[in-house]
C-alpha cells in the first residue's frame, strides 16, 4: 500500500480504468464482486488524488457508481467532490454535484465549503443547466446553515423568467423552508405567486406539490390560500396538480366548514367526468376524509369504489377500492353493506394485501349487533384456509382483538364467545395460543355467568388427546387446565376432567404447562373429596331425622365450621343455609353433581389410585415445578390413605373428625375466588412515612444481618381476595408460630414493610364495572344460575333476551390505552407553520395603499370562472411579483428583487396598461382580505378564533 500514500503517477493516469471497464469487470465475475470492488476502491483512492481533473473525475465517477449500487461508503471522498464543483465543464460539474449529493451527510462540515460555489451557481445569470444542478443539489443536501445563507438566491430564482428554473426553485424552497423556517418570511410570498394561473404549468405543479408537503404537519396556516387552490381545482387540466390540490383540500376542509360546501361540487364534477383513475381515486379519498357529510358526494364516491371493486382483472383497483371503503369508516356502513359480497369474496383473493384489507374492512364494521354473525363466519372461514396458515392467524388475531377490545365491549353473549374461543383453539393452524390463553383465563375471572360454559368448552379441549400433539396450542391447554381446576364446581363430571388431566399424552406438554395441569389435578381432587364428604353429611342430616347422633361434639363443631366457612366466603360453591337446608342450594354445584350422581366411596378411591399411579413417576422428574407439585399431591394422598377408615366404610369415615379437618383445610386452600387486579394497584399503595424508595440498598445486608428474605413476588397477576381465616389444629399452631416470627421480623424492620391491613384492603379491592349495582348483580347472577340449570345447554335462540352478564372491570390501569399519543408537532414544524402563519395572516397592513385604487369591475375579472381574462395573462409572466412583494419582504430580498427586476426587464417589457391591470389585481386580492378583516373585527366578539378565509369562498 506504499503507492496509495503517494500521488498517482503518469502510468496510473494513462492506465486508469474507466467506469465501463469497472462495470464489465463486475459483470464478468459475479462471484468475485467483493474482491473486485476492494481492488477498485484501492485504485480510486489513488486516482482521486490526481491533479488532473479528468483522472479525478473518472475516479469519482467510479466511486459514485459503487456507492449507489453496492452501498460503498464514500463520505471520505466528499472533499474531492467539492474540489470538482468549480469546474467549468458542465459534465464535470454535473458529476461533482451528483457525487456531492450522494456522499454528503446532512451535518457534514464540508457543506459550508460549498456555500460560495452554490451562491455563484445560483446567481440568475448562470446558464440554466448549472442553475438546475445547483438547485437540485440544494434540494437534497441543504443544511440549516446553507438554507439560511442561500435564501436570497432562492427568493430571486422563485421569480426567474425561465419556468423550469422557477419550478425547481420552488422544489428547493421546500427544503430551504423546512431546514430554516425563518426563510419563510422572506420567500414564501414569492412561492404563493407561483400558484397564479398564468404561470407555467410546471411551475404550478411544483409549487402545489411544495404546499402539499408543507401543509402535511399543520394545514391551518394555509387556509388563506384556499382561493388560489380553488381556482386550480376548477381550472387546472393537469391531473398531477389536481391530485395535489385535492390532498390540500382534504386537509383544509375539516378546518373550515364553509370550505367543504364550496368544493363539493367541483369534486363531484371531477368524479363524474375524469377518465384518469388516479384522479378519481384522489377524489374518492377526499370525499371519504373531508366530505363525509355530503350524501350525494359519498354516494357518487361509493359508486366509483364499486367500479374499482368489480375490476376482476386488476388487483390494484380492487385493493384501492377496498382501502377507500375502509376510509369511509363506520359512519357509512351502508357502503360496506352494499359491497358485502365482494368483500367476503376478497377474503379469498390470491393477494395477501387484498385479503388483509378486506379483513380490516370487515373488522372495522363490527358492532355488537353483528359481532356474532361475522365472527362465526370468519372463524369458520379461517378453519378452511388450510393452505394459508398465515392469513388464517391474521383472521383469528383480528377476531380476538376486536372481541377482546375494551374488556369485551362488543360481546353480549359470553357463552357464545367462549364456544368460539374453543373453536379457534381447534383450528389446526392456530398460532394465537397466547391470546386465547389470556382471554380464557380473563373471562373466567371477570364474567361469573360464563364460567359454566367456559368449563364445558375447556373440558372438550382437555379431553381431546389429539390436541396435545400440537405445540402451538399448549398455552391454550394450560389455560384450560387452570380454568377446569379453578372452576371445577361447574364441571358436570369432575372425574372425567381428572382423567383428561392425567392422560398419558400429557407428557407431550412442556413442563410449565404440566405444572399447571398438576395444580388443576390438586384442585379437582380437593373438590371431589370435599364434596364427597359433604354428601356424606347430607346423608347424615337426612338420616339424623331417624337416627340419633352419638355425642360427637368435635364433628358437630367442625361441620358447622365448614358450612359457615363456605357461606361467609360466598364463593361460587353457593351459600348453604346454616340450618343445613342444602337442598335449596343455588348454583350448579350440587345440581350438577347430583345430576351425575354423587361421588361414591369407590369413585374416590379410584381417583386416588389414578392420581397416584400417574404422578408417581413424576416425583422423580428433573423439573422442579413438576416434581414439587407431584410430590405435594402424592403426600396428600398418602396422608389420606393413612386413615384406615378410608378403606373400610363410609360410616367410619364420616365419624372420623381428622378426615373432616383435612377436608376443611383443603377446601380452605382453594375456596378463595381469584379476581383481576389493576395494573396500577401497586402504585396506589401509599408510601409510608419515612420510607425512601430510591434509597440505595447496597447496605441492605449490613442492616438486616443474615435475615434478608425474599418476600412474595410482586409479579403475580392473581392473588387471593380474602385472607384465610380458617386455622385449626396443628396447622394453626404452625401458622401462629410463623406469624409470630413474621411479626417479630416486621417489628425489627418496620421500614421495609408496607403498612398493615388498611393499604392491603385498598389495593386488593377492585370495583366491578357497575359499582353501585354490585349486590344486586350478584343476586342476579345466582338467579341466572338457577335459570341456567333449568335450561337445556344449547339454548342460543333465547340468549338475546338474556341481559349481558356483568364483566368485572377495574377503574384504571386495566384497559390498555391503545389510543396513540397525539402526534406531537416537533419544534421545527412548529416554527415553520408559525412563520407561514405570520406571512399569510400577519403582514397584510403593508400593501394597503394600493388597495384603495382597486375597483369593482376589475375585481370581477379575477373571478376564477371567467378564465378568458386570466388566460390572456399567460405571457406577461412573472415580473409583477416584486411590485407587490418587494415591499413586504426584508431588506436583502428587496435588494434581490430589484436586481431580478433589472435582469428580467428585457423579457418583461410589458406595456403600462397590463402592468396597472395586474397591479390592481394584486391589490384587489388584498382588498378582499382587508374587507374580510373588517368584517372579522365586527364578528370577533362572537367567533373568537375563526380562521381567516376570504369571502371569495362563501
Amino acid at each position, binding site marked *: 500500500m506504499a503507492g496509495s500514500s503517494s500521488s498517482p503517477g503518469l502510468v496510473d493516469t494513462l492506465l486508469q480504468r474507466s467506469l465501463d471497464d469497472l462495470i464489465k469487470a463486475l459483470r464478468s465475475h459475479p462471484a468475485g464482486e467483493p474482491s473486485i470492488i476492494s481492488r477498485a476502491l484501492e485504485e480510486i483512492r489513488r486516482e482521486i488524488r490526481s491533479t488532473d481533473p479528468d483522472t479525478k473525475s473518472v475516479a469519482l465517477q467510479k466511486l459514485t457508481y459503487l456507492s449507489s449500487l453496492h452501498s460503498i461508503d464514500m463520505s471520505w471522498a466528499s472533499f474531492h467532490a467539492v474540489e470538482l464543483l468549480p469546474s467549468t465543464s458542465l459534465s464535470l460539474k*454535473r458529476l461533482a454535484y451528483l457525487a456531492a449529493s450522494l456522499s454528503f451527510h446532512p451535518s457534514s462540515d464540508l457543506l459550508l465549503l460549498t456555500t460560495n460555489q452554490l451562491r455563484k451557481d445560483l446567481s440568475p445569470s448562470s446558464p440554466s443547466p448549472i442553475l*438546475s444542478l445547483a438547485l437540485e443539489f440544494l*434540494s437534497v443536501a441543504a443544511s440549516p446553515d446553507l438554507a439560511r445563507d442561500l435564501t436570497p438566491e432562492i427568493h430571486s430564482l422563485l421569480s426567474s423568467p425561465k419556468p423550469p428554473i422557477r419550478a425547481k426553485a*420552488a422544489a428547493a424552497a421546500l427544503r430551504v423552508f423546512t431546514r430554516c423556517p425563518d426563510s419563510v418570511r422572506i420567500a414564501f410570498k414569492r412561492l404563493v405567486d407561483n400558484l397564479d394561473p398564468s404561470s407555467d404549468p410546471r411551475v404550478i405543479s411544483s409549487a402545489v*406539490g411544495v404546499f402539499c408537503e408543507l401543509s402535511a404537519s399543520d394545514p391551518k396556516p394555509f387556509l388563506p390560500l384556499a382561493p388560489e387552490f380553488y381556482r386550480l381545482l376548477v381550472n387546472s387540466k393537469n391531473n*398531477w396538480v389536481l391530485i395535489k390540490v385535492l390532498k390540500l383540500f382534504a386537509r383544509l376542509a375539516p378546518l373550515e366548514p364553509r370550505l367543504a360546501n364550496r368544493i363539493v361540487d367541483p369534486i363531484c364534477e371531477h368524479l363524474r367526468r375524469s377518465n384518469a383513475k388516479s384522479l378519481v381515486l384522489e377524489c374518492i379519498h377526499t370525499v371519504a376524509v373531508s366530505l363525509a357529510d355530503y350524501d350525494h358526494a359519498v354516494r357518487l364516491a361509493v359508486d366509483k369504489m364499486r367500479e374499482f371493486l368489480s375490476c376482476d382483472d386488476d388487483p390494484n383497483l380492487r385493493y*384501492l377500492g377496498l382501502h377507500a371503503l375502509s376510509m369511509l369508516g363506520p359512519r357509512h356502513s351502508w357502503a360496506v353493506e352494499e359491497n358485502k359480497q365482494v368483500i367476503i369474496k376478497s377474503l379469498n383473493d390470491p393477494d395477501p394485501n387484498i385479503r388483509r384489507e378486506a379483513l380490516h374492512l370487515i373488522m372495522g364494521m363490527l358492532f355488537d349487533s353483528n359481532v356474532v354473525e361475522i365472527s362465526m363466519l370468519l372463524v369458520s372461514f379461517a378453519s378452511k384456509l388450510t393452505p394459508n396458515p398465515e392469513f388464517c392467524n391474521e383472521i383469528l388475531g383480528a377476531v380476538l382483538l376486536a372481541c377482546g377490545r375494551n374488556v369485551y365491549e362488543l360481546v353480549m353473549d359470553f357463552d357464545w364467545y367462549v364456544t368460539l374461543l374453543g373453536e379457534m383453539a381447534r383450528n389446526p393452524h392456530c398460532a394465537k395460543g397466547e391470546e386465547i390463553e389470556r382471554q380464557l383465563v380473563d373471562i373466567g375471572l371477570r364474567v361469573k355467568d360464563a364460567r359454566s360454559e367456559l368449563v364445558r368448552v375447556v373440558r372438550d379441549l382437555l379431553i381431546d388427546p389429539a390436541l396435545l400433539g400440537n405445540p402451538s396450542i399448549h398455552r391454550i391447554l394450560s389455560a384450560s387446565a387452570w380454568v377446569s381446576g379453578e372452576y371445577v364446581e361447574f364441571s358436570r363430571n369432575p372425574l372425567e376432567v381428572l382423567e383428561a388431566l392425567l392422560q398419558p399424552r400429557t407428557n407431550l406438554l412442556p413442563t410449565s404447562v404440566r405444572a399447571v395441569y398438576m395444580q388443576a389435578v390438586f384442585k379437582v381432587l380437593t373438590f371431589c373429596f370435599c364434596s364427597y364428604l359433604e354428601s356424606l353429611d347430607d346423608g347424615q342430616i337426612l338420616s339424623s331425622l331417624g337416627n340419633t347422633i352419638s355425642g360427637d361434639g368435635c364433628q358437630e363443631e367442625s361441620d358447622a365450621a365448614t358450612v359457615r366457612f363456605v357461606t361467609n366466603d360466598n364463593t361460587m360453591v353457593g351459600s348453604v343455609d346454616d340450618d343445613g337446608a342444602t337442598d335449596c342450594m343455588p348454583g350448579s354445584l350440587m345440581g350438577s353433581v347430583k345430576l351425575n350422581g354423587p361421588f361414591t366411596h369407590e369413585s374416590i378411591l379410584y381417583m386416588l389410585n389414578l392420581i397416584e399411579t400417574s404422578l408417581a413417576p413424576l416425583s422423580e422428574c428433573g423439573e422442579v415445578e413438576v416434581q414439587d407439585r407431584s410430590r405435594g399431591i402424592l403426600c396428600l394422598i398418602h396422608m389420606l390413605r393413612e386413615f384406615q377408615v378410608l378403606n373400610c366404610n363410609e360410616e367410619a369415615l364420616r365419624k372420623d373428625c381428622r378426615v373432616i379437618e383435612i377436608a376443611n383445610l383443603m377446601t380452605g386452600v382453594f375456596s378463595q375466588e381469584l379476581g383481576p387486579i389493576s395494573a396500577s394497584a401497586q402504585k396506589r399503595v401509599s408510601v409510608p412515612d419515612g420510607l425512601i424508595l430510591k434509597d440505595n440498598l447496597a447496605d441492605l445486608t449490613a442492616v438486616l444481618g443474615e435475615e434478608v428474605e425474599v418476600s412474595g413476588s410482586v409479579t403475580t397477576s392473581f392473588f387471593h381476595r380474602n385472607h384465610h381465616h380458617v386455622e385449626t389444629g396443628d396447622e394453626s399452631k404452625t401458622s401462629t408460630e410463623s406469624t409470630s416470627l413474621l411479626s417479630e421480623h416486621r417489628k425489627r424492620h418496620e421500614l421495609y414493610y408496607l403498612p398493615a391491613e388498611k393499604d392491603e384492603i385498598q389495593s386488593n379491592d377492585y370495583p366491578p364495572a357497575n359499582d353501585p349495582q354490585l349486590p344486586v348483580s350478584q343476586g342476579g347472577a345466582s338467579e341466572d344460575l338457577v335459570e341456567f340449570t333449568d335450561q337445556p345447554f344449547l339454548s342460543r335462540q333465547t340468549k338475546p333476551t338474556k341481559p349481558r352478564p356483568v364483566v368485572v372491570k377495574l377503574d384504571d390501569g386495566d384497559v390498555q390505552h391503545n389510543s396513540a399519543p397525539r402526534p406531537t408537532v416537533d419544534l421545527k414544524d412548529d416554527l415553520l407553520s408559525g412563520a407561514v402563519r405570520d406571512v399569510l395572516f400577519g403582514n397584510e397592513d403593508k400593501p394597503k395603499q394600493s388597495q384603495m385604487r382597486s375597483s369593482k369591475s376589475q375585481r370581477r375579472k379575477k373571478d376564477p370562472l371567467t378564465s378568458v381574462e386570466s388566460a390572456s395573462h399567460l405571457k406577461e409572466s412573472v415580473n409583477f411579483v416584486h411590485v407587490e412583494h418587494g415591499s413586504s419582504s426584508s431588506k436583502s430580498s428587496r435588494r434581490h428583487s430589484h436586481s431580478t427586476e433589472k435582469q428580467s426587464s428585457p423579457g418583461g417589457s410589458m406595456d403600462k396598461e397590463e402592468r396597472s391591470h395586474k397591479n390592481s389585481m394584486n391589490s384587489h386580492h388584498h382588498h378582499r382580505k382587508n374587507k374580510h378583516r373588517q368584517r372579522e373585527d365586527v364578528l370577533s366578539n362572537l367567533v373568537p378564533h375563526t380562521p381567516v378565509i376570504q369571502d371569495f369562498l362563501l
Partner: protein
Amino acid sequence: MGIRFVLLVNKQGQTRLAQYYEYLTLDERRALEGEIVRKCLARTEHQCSFVEHRNYKVVYRRYASLFFLVGVDNDENELAILEFIHLLVETMDRHFGNVCELDIMFHLEKAHFMLEEMVMNGCIVETNKQNILAPIQLMDKAS
C-alpha cells in the same frame, strides 16, 4: 415528502439504481433495500402493486426483467405513482431506444439526471418527456 426513494432492481434482486430523497445511512439503506426487494419480488402478477413496509408504501411495477420500486408517504396516491413509474420508463425508452438493464447499468448517471429532472426533493416537478430529456441531449451534444 411525497416520494421517499426510487429503486431499480433486477430479477436477481441486484440494485441497478437507487435514489433517496431523505437521508438514510448506508446500513439503513442496505437493510431497507434487502427487505423491500425480498417482499416485492416474491409477489405474483395476480397481486396488487402496493406493499406497505415500515412507514412507507412501496409502489412497484415490473418491466421485463427490471422492477421499478418507488417508496412514498402513506397518503400518497398509488395510481399517480404508477403513472409516474410508467412515465419514467417511457422517458428512458425514448432516450435509449428499447431500454434494457444494460443501458441503465452503463449510463447510470443519465438515469440519475432524468430522475433529477422529474423529481426534486420528493416532489414531481416535470412530467413532459421532451422537457425531461432536453438537458441530457444538450449534454450529449456538448461532449
